[in-house]
Structures are given as C-alpha cells and as structure tokens.
C-alpha cells in the first residue's frame, strides 16, 4: 500500500513538474501563433539551429544580416544602410547604421561584422562558404570593405544577405560554437528576443525587441508550436493557431471559411535520378531521352499529386523562379512512339511480353523509391516505362538508405527530390556539378560544366541570365536526371498573422512565408 502510494505520488509530482515548466511565460492578446509539423528546429543561434530552412527562419528573427529581402525579393538595407560594389577592386563596401544596439545594450559596429567573417573561417558555418572572400576590413567604425578573391555574382544574396552577424563581445570567447547554448548565445540585433525554447515539445516563444532599429515590431509575442500537418486546419479553425502549412486538398475549403491562402512557389523538384555514372545503358544520352519521352508527367501530376503540382521542366529550373527560368526549352512531351524509336535505334528489339531485348538479355532496370515518399510516383513511372517495353523492378527503401545508394551510384533509376531552386541559380551548380549529397555529379559535357562555373562570376545580371538560360538548354539536352514535377504547398493564415512569401525565397532561397519584416510596422 505504502509503495503504491509512493509510486502514485511520483507520477503526480512528475506530471506537476512537466506541466509547470512553462508557467510564468504567459501570453498577452497581441500574440501570433504559428503551427509547424516538426516543431523542434533547434536552439535558434546560428550554430545551434538545425541546418534546414525552418531552423534558419527561427534564427533570423533574432539575428540580422547586412542586407535582407522584401516581399518582391528586392534587396533592402538592414544592418548596412547602403552598399556599393567596386568592380575594378572587386570589393563591396557596406555603410553600417550607427544607431544599432545588441539585445544586451552593447553598441553594434564594424568590428562585429569583421569578427563574424573571421569567425566563420575558423568555425565553418554550413550556410555560407567564405572561400570567395579575400579580406574583410573596416574603414572607421561603421564602414566595412569586403574584397573577393574572384568575381562572385551570388555574393549579395548568398553571403551578405544570409550570414547573421554575431556580437564579438560574446562570441570571441566561444571555442565550441556548435554546443554553445549559454544565456548570451541568443544576443542579436533582430526584431525578436527568445524567451523560451522547449526542444521536446518543439515550441518557441519570442518577444518583440522594443528598441528595434529597423521599425516598431507590430506584435508583442510570436509563438511556434508543434502541430501535425493533418490537424493544422482544425487548429486554425478553432483559433488555436493563426498560421500553418496545410494539406493542399483543404486549401479551397479554408479559403471559403475566410482564411488567407499563401501558395508556396513550387520550387521543390521531384526527379527521376539516372545512374549515368556506372550503368552503361544509362550513360547513353539517347536512352535517357527515350526514358523522358516515355514518362507521362501530366499523369503523375494528376494522379499522384492530385493536380497539386507543376509539371517538371527538362531544364530543371522551375517556372516559379521567374527571374531565371527559361520558358523556351523544348520539353519531352509524352510519346511512346519516340521512346520505341530511340530504343530500337540502339539495337534493341521487341521480344517476349512486349519487353525489348538484345543478345538474349531483357531490357530491365530497377527503380528505387523511398518508403512512403514516392511510391505512387514510382508505380506510375513503372507503368509508363513498361508500356514502352522497359521492364521495371520497383523496389522501395528506407529514405536514408536510398540516399546512400544514390551517393554511391548503387542503383539504376531512383526517385528523389530536393528544394533550393527558388533563389540564386548557384543552386543549379549545387545539384548538377558540385559533389554535394543532392548533386547528379554530371561532368560529361565540359561546356556545360564551364558555363556553370562561369555564370557565378558574371556580375551583369542580364548576361548572367543568358548564361543560365543556356545552361538549362544544355541540361535538357544532356538530361542527367528527369524532373517529374514541382509540388504545390500551401500555408493558411488569418488576418492576425500577416505573413507572406518572399520572391526568390528568404536568404539563399528558403521558401517559407515567415519573413521577419512582415512583423514590422510599415
């Protein structure tokens, strides 16, 4: 009896302790609540956040960059009130604002900017590669000059508009930034100050920075809570959250109920990855063309994505990236006849069961998909290819196992995807010629590789645009992977949460509609 009592008391005390851990962080009326299906995106310091878009967004509410983007994607001043580029000296000069204070009251100046650039050289930060930077110097307390090793067109977007400036007086003593979570680790200059973060519950509570230099913050508190995607609509309707990502199917219904819809620019690409590296048949460009003609991308969009997607472009760049998308690329319209012709030109003849064969071997490939993610797409691609005479063995793997197989060229065909195509076209390099995890690592066409490298150094936007257009044309011709579709995702919000998507994405191209300037008085 005594033991049962002790056991019960332990339970009650534990419940009380857990439940009371958030006591004292009460809300006021002026609060915006945002639901998120993952919840926890890490401790929102530049080094503590999880290295994904939502982690960056939570960090960006506390830390500012030299420049930022408005709703239309135009560069706007932030810590720097103006900037200038000297082409001859290949140097950017930033004139900093003189009225900025860190959250702890210390003044902000050029030494903090110089410190940050030096700090990321010593302690690499995964969002910015400082390899292109030759030197960072100051000219007085509020002017910073950044000289580059070579011309680097994405500098403003991918470095100056992405790198959060950290306070020297705090970080100069921190040797292990990845694990630093001290009270002062979240001292920034941004519009919000973090009041609470609970990793197990995936919740964040931010309070407005009353002395924000850029403008008055128009809400008192901003809260992120964990809410599963399927239940977000119900939470929105009950008023428990003010904004959240919703399943596409309920977008119309919520719109009818008075919610405002934000359609995420479809810049996430679902692709058929082709092993052009170690499979002799798939090394043949014309065979890759045959595959492209055989896949009915319209059917995938209609059936698998229930119409909530945009058909893939052969040039990879999505139409939603209006600045860089080349609309004149010839697409591989669905045509079994063309597929058959191309396969027969390679010496294959139609044999048993309608499948092609050569020298007694059936034309057969394995199509790998990750469990749950692309299985329906995989079935349609299999049906399409088998209709064209290619036997397909559809196999599903755990997602990271499949990633590993792709990385080690241990597959024939695979369906996988990635985002990042909404911003600067440097992302094309990341997914085509860089050695990164999402790259198709295609080096067969030297001209394409050369052009991709050269576009990074072209400072004239119009000339660069022409180069990026040509890259898309060449990519469509080489076809190292086939873009199947770009899914459409939606956010719903009420009038209290005045959120919006940023053209070209936030910082390097994050397609999340939580731009901190949405919370500032106009």
């Amino acid at each position, binding site marked *: 009896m005594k033991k049962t009592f002790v056991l019960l008391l332990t339970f009650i005390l534990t419940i*009380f302790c857990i439940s009371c851990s958030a006591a004292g962080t009460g809300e006021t009326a002026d609060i915006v609540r945002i639901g998120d299906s993952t919840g926890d995106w890490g401790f929102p310091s530049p080094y503590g956040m*999880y290295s994904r878009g939502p982690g960056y967004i939570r960090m960006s509410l506390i830390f500012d960059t030299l420049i930022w983007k408005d709703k239309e994607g135009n560069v706007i001043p932030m810590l720097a009130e103006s900037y200038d580029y000297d082409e001859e000296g290949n140097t950017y000069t930033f004139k900093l604002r003189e009225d900025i204070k860190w959250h702890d009251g210390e003044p902000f100046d050029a030494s903090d900017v110089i410190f940050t650039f030096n700090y990321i050289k010593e302690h690499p930060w995964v969002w910015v590669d400082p390899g292109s930077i030759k030197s960072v110097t100051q000219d007085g307390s509020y002017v910073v000059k950044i000289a580059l090793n070579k011309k680097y067109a994405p500098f403003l977007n991918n470095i100056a508009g992405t790198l959060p400036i950290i306070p020297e007086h705090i970080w100069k003593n921190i040797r292990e930034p990845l694990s630093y979570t001290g009270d002062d680790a979240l001292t920034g200059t941004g519009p919000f100050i973090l009041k609470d973060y609970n990793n197990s519950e995936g919740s964040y509570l931010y309070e407005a920075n009353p002395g924000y230099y850029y403008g008055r913050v128009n809400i008192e508190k901003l809260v992120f809570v964990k809410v599963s995607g399927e239940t977000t609509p119900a939470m929105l309707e009950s008023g428990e959250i003010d904004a959240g990502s919703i399943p596409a199917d309920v977008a119309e219904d919520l719109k009818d109920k008075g919610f405002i819809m934000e359609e995420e620019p479809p810049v996430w690409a679902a692709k058929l990855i082709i092993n052009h590296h170690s499979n002799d048949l798939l090394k043949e460009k014309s065979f890759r063309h045959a595959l492209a003609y055989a896949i009915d991308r319209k059917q995938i969009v209609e059936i698998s994505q229930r119409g909530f997607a945009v058909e893939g472009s052969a040039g990879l760049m999505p139409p939603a990236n209006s600045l860089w998308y080349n609309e004149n690329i010839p697409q591989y319209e669905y045509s079994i006849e063309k597929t058959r012709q191309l396969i027969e030109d390679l010496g294959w003849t139609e044999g048993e069961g309608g499948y092609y064969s050569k020298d007694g071997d059936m034309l057969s490939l394995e199509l790998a998909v990750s469990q749950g993610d692309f299985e329906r797409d995989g079935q349609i691609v299999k049906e399409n290819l088998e209709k064209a005479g290619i036997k397909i063995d559809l196999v599903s793997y755990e997602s990271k*196992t499949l990633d590993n197989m792709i990385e080690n060229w241990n597959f024939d065909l695979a369906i996988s995807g990635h985002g990042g195509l909404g911003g600067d076209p440097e992302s094309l390099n990341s997914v085509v010629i860089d050695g990164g995890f999402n790259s198709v690592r295609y080096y067969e066409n030297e001209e394409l590789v050369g052009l991709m490298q050269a576009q990074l150094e072209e400072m004239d936007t119009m000339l660069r645009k022409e180069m990026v257009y040509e890259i898309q044309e060449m990519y469509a011709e080489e076809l190292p992977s086939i873009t199947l579709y770009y899914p459409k995702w939606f956010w719903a919000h009420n009038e209290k949460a005045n959120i919006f998507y940023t053209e070209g994405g936030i910082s390097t191209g994050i397609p999340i509609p939580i731009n901190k300037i949405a919370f500032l008085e106009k």
Partner: protein
Amino acid sequence: MRKKCFSYIIAFLIIITLNFIVPRLLPGDPLSAIYGEEVLLKLSGETREYINSTYNLDRPVAIQYVLHVISIFRGNLGYSIYYKKPVIELVFSYIPYTIILMGLGMLISTALGIVLGIESGWRRGKRYDRFILFMMIFFSGFPAFFMGACFLIIFGVILDILPFQGAKTAYSGMAASGITFDFLRHLILPLLSLVFVFTPSSYLLTRNAMISSIKEPYILLAKAKGLKDIRIRYGHAGRNSLIPVATHTGVRLGTVMMTGTLFIEIIFSYPGMGTLIYNSILNRDYPVIQGSFLFVAVLVLLINFLMDISYVRLDPRIEYAY
C-alpha cells in the same frame, strides 16, 4: 542471486557493444543524413572536416568504440550530432513524457486486464465472459495508430471536447494549477488509445491462467473452508494467475516504449522517447541512438530484475528454483 547479477552485467556489456555496432551498420552516415537534404547548404571539404572532427567521426571505429565505452562508465552518453545537445540532457527532456504516457498506459491497462481477466475467467462461458472476450478480441485487432486516429477524430475534432495535439497548450498563460489540468486533458486521448491497445493482451493472459487456476484442488479446498467468494477469486485463483502477466509486462516494456508509443506520439504530436529514437535513426545520429537504446535497455533490465524479485512474492516456490 550472485549468478543472476553476473548475468545482468554480461547482458549490459553485450548491449553496449551492440548499441555501438548496429547504428553503424545502417547505410549512410550522420553527415549525409543530417545535412544531405538541404540544397542551400555550402558543405565544403573544410566544413565537412570540421563537423567530422567535432563529433569524432574522423577517428577509426575502434577508437570511437573505446571512447564510447569510457564515456558510458563516466556517465556520459555522448553528444548529439543532430540536436547539438548532450544525449543525457536530451533523454531527460523526452523521457518524463514517455514515463507518464507509457507508465500510466501500462499500469492502467495491466490492472484493467487483470481485473477483467479474473472476472471473465471466474465466470467462464457465461454471458459476461462472452461479452468481455468478444470486446477484447475485437479491440486487440486494432493497431495503436488506428485507435489513436479514431479517438482524435471523435473526441478532438467532431465533439471538440478534448485537445488532440501536444502535451500541453504552449505558453497558455495559465496559473500552475490550470497548467496541470491542461496537461492532464492533453494526456487523456493518447492514454486512452494506449489503454485500449494494451489491455486485451493482459486480459487474455489472465483469463487463460485463471481458467487453469480455478480447476486446481486448492480452490476446491478454499471453497470447502467457506472462504468468501471474492477472496477465493482474487486472493487464491487471481494471485496464482499473475505470473504470466508479470512476465509478459516486463518483456513487453522495451517494445512498448520504443514502438508501441511511437505511433501514438506521432498522431497526437506528443513528445517522447519514441519520437526521439525514430528521428535519431532517420538522422543516423549515432550518439543519440546509442544513448537512448542504452537507456531503454537498462530500464528493461531493471524492470526484469524487479520482475524476478516480484515472482518470488507472487509465488514463493520460485525461490527454491534458484
């Protein structure tokens, strides 16, 4: 008893080794699993080296193993590569929820299963027994996630009388007593789902054992002695039917903690060890996989040890077996 303790130590050492080896047999590595999905990252060679050396991933596996064993004996479970936190801190931030949810779920379902099983077995073949048996077999067919989804839709969405997300209303501004009430309200639906899923197995085991027990001569003797019906049912037949239930509960604990509650945690966005372990496997976060499995394994060993002791209480004849 000393022999038993020795076997527990051997089991512990094997667990440490397996915990180290198995995550590394999974295809992929932490770097590609954690950073691979984000195209916008700039993972230069230097950055990769920096991350690998920070987490000792650049050292030979044998050295990593030795460091792992030394850390454990120093009470350090390592440092999470994904969560960027000490594993012990992570486990302690998640495990209270699991203990509450799973502990209460196991406690209520086992108690309910035992009581219903004893009553059912005692009245074998009668209307009450047939009805309870039918209901239990019916509910045992439903997987946890299905029960969870049903409760969520009925009580959370249609009737809108109970919260169906998370463990509490974040930053509600309530007083401490209100927050406790809020926490308990959030607990109802996931707990109810677990109770519905766990009860049938305890019930069926107790009922079967009860049916065997009531045929024993000591029951006849107890009846002949004129003992009260309830005393015979619970004090004699019931008590002797508990051994299989106790064994079953102990053995099941590890599975329940990691897999049973996982679906419930996901459906109700409820924090807990299931979610932590699932995410750490997805991210190939070796230190968290090792640390959480070790924690769960030690907990299971401890409970088995307690079960071993409780057997003697339940059936003193077992002591002579040692």
